């Protein structure tokens, strides 16, 4: 009975938790509800992923209205994979937030944080689960508004400006997206994604459709921070509360990539996107620019959080590079990296939150000799950093392997060379941390010896462990990504 409604419940439960938390006005109850809702979402996502792997696509008709009139929730290999990522990160960040938020926010804002967190989680899950183009927009706005609030909660006053920047750019992105959807509605007369795809198969390639493609590409590129539309990201990540940064870095841009993939390969179809327009060339070019420039900028940051924020822009470049290859292997690499980068960056930002708690910030001047003061946190950052570099045995290595393999099989030898060369920059910036933490003598600014509280360390290390688990056992990640890639390319008309 409940199982059959899971596609809706996975979104509805966190969504309903939000107003409940506001009504209760209690930090402890709010935290408990948010944690429970995110755990439920995680369990539901796992169940949905298992069901999709067993029986194929799940189509759920909201309120029993059949599509294309009603709203359809549609879970396939790709969306199930994303649901698992988003809800898993949610379930890890929720318990972490208890102590982290307590340290960074005034007490009267605690329950509001938990409520908005639930809204954000619901919005991101909704964007992934829904099979309706306009419904995607609705959830995108729910998630984005929640994010603006979450970022603005940062205790540094610059968080307000960062949030405002993101608000402006994010709204422009959403507007572009909705204009694109409007054009598609004009042509097809439907908002259901599957239905839209079917109709476009007959009269794709007309001018409004191409315009829609352009609008949606630009809109989503803003949301997923594709170079050069990434300018909102570093400040937003740097000044948001620690728990928020970890959650956003691991999920928000990833879901936007998902929506882009959905439109490219389900709605427009690989034929139109890859052949009629120079989309792969543009994507590859911008991805290279993102990887090289953001990696180099990351190298010169004076703050650990900012450094990894720029690193995120570069890593998104690897994902879009995989999409630009436009082959099965390339798409597999992109989807695998969505997940692997999500858990790696999640781990890093959670651990940095621990440093911020103990040292009052994560500037490099506070990291001298941190290996002695916070041994577990330092080791965790080093290990997750290895995954970011792509050392074998880590999740990041699996991403790099699939991406380089994809590039070689597509005949792009120089791209393979570029991918491995740029990962050396990651070695350099990760090693800046390692040298500061282990080879520099502590001084007055180094925090006194002592770890972050257990409720923060445990979730962080859970993700660090995941970085290694998914470096050896790839049956879930690579298999799911291959199925998703096959679906995207095979589903093309």
């Amino acid at each position, binding site marked *: 009975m409940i199982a059959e409604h899971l596609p809706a419940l996975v979104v509805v439960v966190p969504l309903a938790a939000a107003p409940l938390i506001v009504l209760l006005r209690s930090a402890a109850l709010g935290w408990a509800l948010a944690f429970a809702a995110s755990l439920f979402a995680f369990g539901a996502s796992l169940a949905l992923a298992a069901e999709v792997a067993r029986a194929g696509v799940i189509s759920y008709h909201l309120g029993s209205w059949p599509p294309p009139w009603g709203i359809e929730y549609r879970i396939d290999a790709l969306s199930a994979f994303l649901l698992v990522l988003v809800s898993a990160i949610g379930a890890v960040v929720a318990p972490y937030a208890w102590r982290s938020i307590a340290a960074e926010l005034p007490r009267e804002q605690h329950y509001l944080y938990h409520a908005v967190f639930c809204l954000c989680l619901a919005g991101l899950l909704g964007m992934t689960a829904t099979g309706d183009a306009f419904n995607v927009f609705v959830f995108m706005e729910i998630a984005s508004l929640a994010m603006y609030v979450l970022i603005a909660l940062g205790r540094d006053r610059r968080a307000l400006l960062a949030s405002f920047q993101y608000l402006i750019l994010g709204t422009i992105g959403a507007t572009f997206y909705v204009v694109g959807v409007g054009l598609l509605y004009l042509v097809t007369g439907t908002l259901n994604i599957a239905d839209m795809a079917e109709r476009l198969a007959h009269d794709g390639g007309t001018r409004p459709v191409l315009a829609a493609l352009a609008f949606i590409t630009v809109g989503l590129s803003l949301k997923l921070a594709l170079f050069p539309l990434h300018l909102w990201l570093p400040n937003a990540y740097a000044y948001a509360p620690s728990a928020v940064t970890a959650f956003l870095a691991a999920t928000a841009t990833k879901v936007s990539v998902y929506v882009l993939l959905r439109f490219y390969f389900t709605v427009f179809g690989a034929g139109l996107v890859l052949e009629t327009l120079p989309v792969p060339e543009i994507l590859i070019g911008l991805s290279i620019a993102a990887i090289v420039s953001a990696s180099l900028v990351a190298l010169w940051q004076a703050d650990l959080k900012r450094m990894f924020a720029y690193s995120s822009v570069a890593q998104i470049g690897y994902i879009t590079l995989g999409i630009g290859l436009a082959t099965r292997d390339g798409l597999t690499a992109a989807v695998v990296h969505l997940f692997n980068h999500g858990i790696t960056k999640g781990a890093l930002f959670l651990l940095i939150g621990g440093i911020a708690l103990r040292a009052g910030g994560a500037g490099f001047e506070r990291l001298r000799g941190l290996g002695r003061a916070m041994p577990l946190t330092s080791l965790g950052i080093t290990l997750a950093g290895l995954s970011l570099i792509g050392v074998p045995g880590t999740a990041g290595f699996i991403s790099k392997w699939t991406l380089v393999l994809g590039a*070689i099989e597509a005949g792009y030898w120089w791209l393979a060379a570029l991918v491995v060369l740029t990962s050396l920059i990651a070695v350099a910036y990760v090693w800046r941390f390692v040298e500061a933490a282990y080879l520099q003598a502590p001084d007055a600014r180094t925090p006194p010896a002592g770890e972050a509280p257990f409720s923060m360390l445990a979730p962080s290390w859970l993700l660090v462990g995941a970085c290694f688990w998914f470096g050896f056992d790839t049956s879930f990640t690579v298999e799911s990504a291959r199925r998703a890639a096959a679906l995207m390319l095979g589903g093309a008309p």
Partner: protein
Amino acid sequence: MSAAQLIIACLLVPAVGAAGIALAGRWPNLRETVTLSTAALLFASVLGLLPKVLAGGVPQLFVLEMLPGIALGFRVEALGMLFALVASGLWIVNSVYSIGYMRGNDEPQQTRFYVCFALALAATMGIAFSANLLTLFLFYEILTLVTWPLVTHHGDEEARKGGRLYLGFLLGTSIVLLLPAIIATWALAGTLEFTPGGILRDKASGPVIGGLLALYMFGIGKAALMPFHRWLPAAMVAPTPVSALLHAVAVVKAGVFTVVKVIVYVFGVDTLAGIRAADWLPAVAGFTIVAASIVALRSDNLKRRLAYSTVSQLSYVVLAAALLTPLSVIGATLHIATHAVGKITLFFAAGAIYTAAHKTEVSQLDGIGRRMPWTMGAFAVGALSMIGLPPAAGFISKWYLLAAAVELGHWTALGVVAASTLLNAAYFAPIVYRAFLRPPPAGAAAHGEAPLPMVLALTATAALTLVLFFQPDVALALARAVAGG
């Protein structure tokens, strides 16, 4: 125990030992007992596999599938067997030596030192027994990372610089050159398993094979082929036991081991010989041999001289493997073992001199042989092995290399070996001469031998260098098996 259990033991014993060392950190005597018993247990496990391999068996262990079609797995063949024997056997001696050295010099962070050492041995076993390129690459990178804290042991500016060079060269070459080579091999051959005869026959054209070979040879930075050799002298900032076991045996031998493994089991000797894709390699190796020897000749710092001697000697292995005949492959395999025992003796002696007399430069060694006769006697044996004269082990591997060069009529290789022999004599003989025949400088501080554990260790390895000359049967049997009969 079954073969699979022995393989698991070889990997887990040092890893568990590392945990034990960390737990026993507060009680130095207990900690050192854990190290020694771990080393003994590891050597026993490796020895347990030897009869099976000598009988022609190939013990295997499949762990899990890391990527679709590529397993994390282990397969013990003759080359890996020999490498594992050398590394694990010398670890016992080196641990005895370390105890003397670390205590004698009152080094900081001793627990971390022993933990990283044990982890490095675990990684070395993983490399030696790996069944395919991906498994090998995994442990190859782990070895780089766990030896980094040993290189930067002292934590000062010099250590930091050394550590940067170490990591930059080793991670850099492996990520930029070796990894793409492995992925390209997978794309071309559809397998990464080490297979007698190679996996690339008829899979690609000559130039592609040649390019791939270049990626491998330079990508395996641990083999220190010029111009990617600078990390090795930089690594000499580490305490001497690290230089002795890791940067004369485990890490560098992991490099040349991988070179031989790739040439024999990935490309296949006959494939390479058939299309002449490896013709450039003897020249590069020969250049490295001679150039590194010249640098060694000009270095006054003893450890630096030994490091460049290692760079030079490593290329003997590459040169031998690149000649692509059964005799030369035997020479390459043997040299992994014979150079190891000789060079570890030399480093042990250098460390003993530093501990007892606090001397690091060759020019300070006048007359030291009279105060430290055991140490300098062992040094002389090691030097003899480097030069390649009987009755030291180095003679045997050099003999096979020369025989192969003569058989092929490869005059470049012959010339390189001849020049290198002279150069080796030129930079080792003066040290022995100074130590024994020059009078000590007036007013020198009186000192005797280094602490007993160190003297015991270096005597043992010097003896081993001689024993290996008279009793090379096991090593030779394994080397013949690598060469294919």
